[in-house]
């Protein structure tokens, strides 16, 4: 494991019970992710990409194998340590945005800052700053239902960035967006990676997202079947295009 590995996945398996049957959503995955990398996880639905995404983010724990973030074993953490990682180290962006419907845009962004232990005033001024940055000034008090899909996703991005995480996890972030807002989002993610050195990991089957990636992980039936680096990607794109 190199010193700049931020996430390391070792022989991770995840088993679900469906009826009486065991289904291996992940069947032995090994992957090291470097700090500041932009990774896309590709694969058909049911390939295990969401499961892998959940493992990396500490949203679910593996049945077998190890996941480490900055060298710390997720599987050995207590719930308060996991909460710390989720709050401070990782920002999550979901396909369905997962904004809290009863809270305003501002309150949604404030929430992780408050969980991190900041005062209300501190959280408020920080959240306003981030919302301004993603172009939502003047929409602080809007509820998610009063915002367009693109705006909701920007609130979600602002919320993910609230505690300046080192890792940004995005599960099908463009899945519910039109072409243009989707492209805007990809540019935003890429800019975060370039400017702040944020490690970006996305699960996607949107081909647009591949161009921004440093590496693309192809997943099928719970196993990594191929890993392509940027150079290789642009080569094959050249051939197709």
């Amino acid at each position, binding site marked *: 494991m190199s010193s700049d590995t931020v996430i390391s996945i070792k022989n991770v398996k995840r088993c679900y019970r469906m009826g009486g049957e065991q289904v291996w959503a992940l069947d032995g995955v090994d992957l090291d992710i470097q700090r500041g990398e932009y990774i896309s996880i590709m694969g058909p639905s049911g390939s295990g990409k969401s499961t892998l995404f*959940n493992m990396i*983010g500490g*949203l*679910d*724990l593996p049945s077998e194998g190890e996941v480490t973030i*900055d*060298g*710390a*074993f997720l599987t*050995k*953490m*207590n*719930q*308060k*340590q996991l*909460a*710390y*990682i*989720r*709050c*401070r180290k990782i920002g*999550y962006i*979901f396909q369905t945005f*997962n*904004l*809290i*419907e*009863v*809270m305003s845009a501002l309150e949604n962004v404030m*929430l*992780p800052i*408050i*969980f*991190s*232990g900041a005062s209300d005033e501190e959280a408020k001024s920080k959240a306003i700053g981030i919302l301004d940055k993603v172009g939502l000034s003047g929409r602080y008090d809007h509820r998610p239902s009063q915002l367009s899909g693109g705006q909701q996703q920007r609130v979600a991005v602002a*919320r993910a960035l609230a*505690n300046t995480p080192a890792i940004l996890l995005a599960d099908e972030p463009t899945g519910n967006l039109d072409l243009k807002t989707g492209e805007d989002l990809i540019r935003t993610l890429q800019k975060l990676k370039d400017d702040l050195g944020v490690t970006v990991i996305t699960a996607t089957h949107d081909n647009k997202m591949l161009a921004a990636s440093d590496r693309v992980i192809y997943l099928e039936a719970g196993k990594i079947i191929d890993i392509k680096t940027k150079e290789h990607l642009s080569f094959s794109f050249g051939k197709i295009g």
Partner: protein
Amino acid sequence: MKTENEIMEIESLPLGKIISITCKGIKIRIWRSLIVVSGIVLAIAFLSYILCSDGFAQNVSKAAGSIVEQGSPEKIQELKDQRVQTYWMVGLAILISFVGIVNAMLMSVTERFREIGTMKCLGAIDSFVLKMFLIESVIEGVIGALLGVLAGILIAYVEGVFTYGSGVWSLLPLAWLLGVVAFSFVTGVIITVVAALYPAREASKMMPVVALRAEL
């Protein structure tokens, strides 16, 4: 490589902050909260109504007992049967309260699984989720039980006026009435909190991904 001890833990939020977050939630979801409260009101109104009417009946028969000299064995048996019937009614009232309130609390927790999952992704710890729902249930339980007791006693007295005439006002000793109020109120609050405890505990322990996946 870091050891476990070096990994930071998230601090619990102070109780005051959790209360203020909970109250904000109740206010925003005011209609949903009112439906839960009205379930508690109905259940506890029924309970206090039964207790209160039973009080009337007992005190009337006591008064009658002192006037109509020592009752015949048949009369005593009849009174005993009445008591048994009342115990059944009170038991039934508590059961109905329990089922009604459990249902209301179960719904109000399960319909928020996604929200719980999202909060856990943002750094909420188990005890935060648990406290949030318990505080909410205490608030709803206190308001619902209070209104329920008042409504139940009011209905019992209105009905009592028709059954016993204006003498009903002096029928129950104050201590008896206070006993009914206290018993119904405490029962209401306890049932509400206990009903919230189980789903809230389950919800608080869920991995975020399970809570997010929950379909309703």
